[in-house]
């Protein structure tokens, strides 16, 4: 029985470790912290070892634990609040990179700018958008993680994207006018 549990646990680790890591990374935005969080997630899982057989959807369950651990760890990190001016500056830099010829080469830099813009979103929209960017996590699973309805999650993701697009479009317009 113990052996079966060990095997089940190992299978879960092998199957869902990357998902847990990505969820942690989406919140913490740091590889080292994300790995530490992933370790913590699976150590926590040890406590539930006897109950593993009773859990229906391991993926959603682990995603939920991963989200909670990451959020807890994120709260312990120093909060970097961005003013409207800083957000605009980040967006401007993004737009200039977007219009430049080196768009593909500077992908990672663009991503860093996008982090700033996403961080400035209202919390419910930000959380839904962050989870929606993770590969293999459906809106239904995001709804389970955030304890909300699927339609609400879809709506939040849509609104978050709209806000990002509006900010980018407005700044792109300004950028072109300045040229």
């Amino acid at each position, binding site marked *: 029985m113990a052996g079966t549990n060990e095997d089940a*646990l*190992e299978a879960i*680790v*092998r199957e869902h*470790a*990357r998902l847990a*890591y*990505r969820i942690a*990374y*989406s919140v913490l935005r740091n*590889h080292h912290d*994300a*790995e530490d969080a*992933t*370790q913590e997630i*699976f*150590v926590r*899982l*040890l406590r539930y070892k006897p109950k593993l057989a009773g859990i229906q959807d391991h993926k959603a369950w682990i995603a939920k634990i991963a989200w909670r651990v990451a959020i807890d760890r994120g709260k312990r990190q120093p909060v970097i609040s961005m003013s409207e001016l800083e957000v605009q500056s980040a967006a401007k830099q993004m737009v200039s990179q*977007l219009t430049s010829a080196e768009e593909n080469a500077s*992908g*990672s830099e*663009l*991503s860093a700018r*996008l*982090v700033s813009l*996403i961080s400035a979103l209202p919390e419910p929209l930000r959380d839904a*958008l*962050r989870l*929606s*960017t*993770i*590969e293999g996590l459906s809106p239904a699973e995001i709804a389970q993680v955030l304890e909300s309805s699927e339609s609400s999650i879809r709506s939040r993701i849509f609104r978050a*994207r709209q806000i*990002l*697009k509006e900010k*980018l*479009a407005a700044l*792109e317009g300004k950028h072109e006018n300045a040229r």
Partner: protein
Amino acid sequence: MKTRDRDRLDEWLDKALQQYGNAEPRIGLESRILANMEAAGKRALFGYSYGWLLAAATTATVLIGLWLGVWHRPLEITKKGPTTQIAGGVGKQMGPKIAPAARPRHIGTKLPLLRHPNAAAAVESARGPRLEQFPSPRPPSKQEVLLTQYAEHFPAEARLIAQQQDKFQQEIQQAEQEMKDASPDSEQ
């Protein structure tokens, strides 16, 4: 034109968000997690057994402490007995009613002994060899001194007074006995 811009922006945002969520861990994440879980499991087991050991040690300490307390307390009382008896007599009239053998209720308590002005003298007397009868812990009163002096100077009169007092005491006791015998309760 605007629709085309929108499409372009959408496309770019999709790409950027995909990049945003695309985080790859270092190679061997699963193995590291499994190793860490194994270590954590062992630590938990170790902590569990140590917890039992600690609990057992605590219980043993408490039991030994109780045992020592139970077996050593009577000895302490016996040792402190003379001191506390002296303390009980301090400040009271010494007479036949307060027998030295009568143990005061606050036996074993140290506070009255330490607070009393004659406490130091009482402790000093307690440190000496054990006597058959305890000496008075306080100096004799003025009346007692006068009585002693009178008995020394006029022993015959003092003896006569003592005899008369004994006789008077016997008469009183006899009268009390007669009254008891004559009462209706005794007849029944």
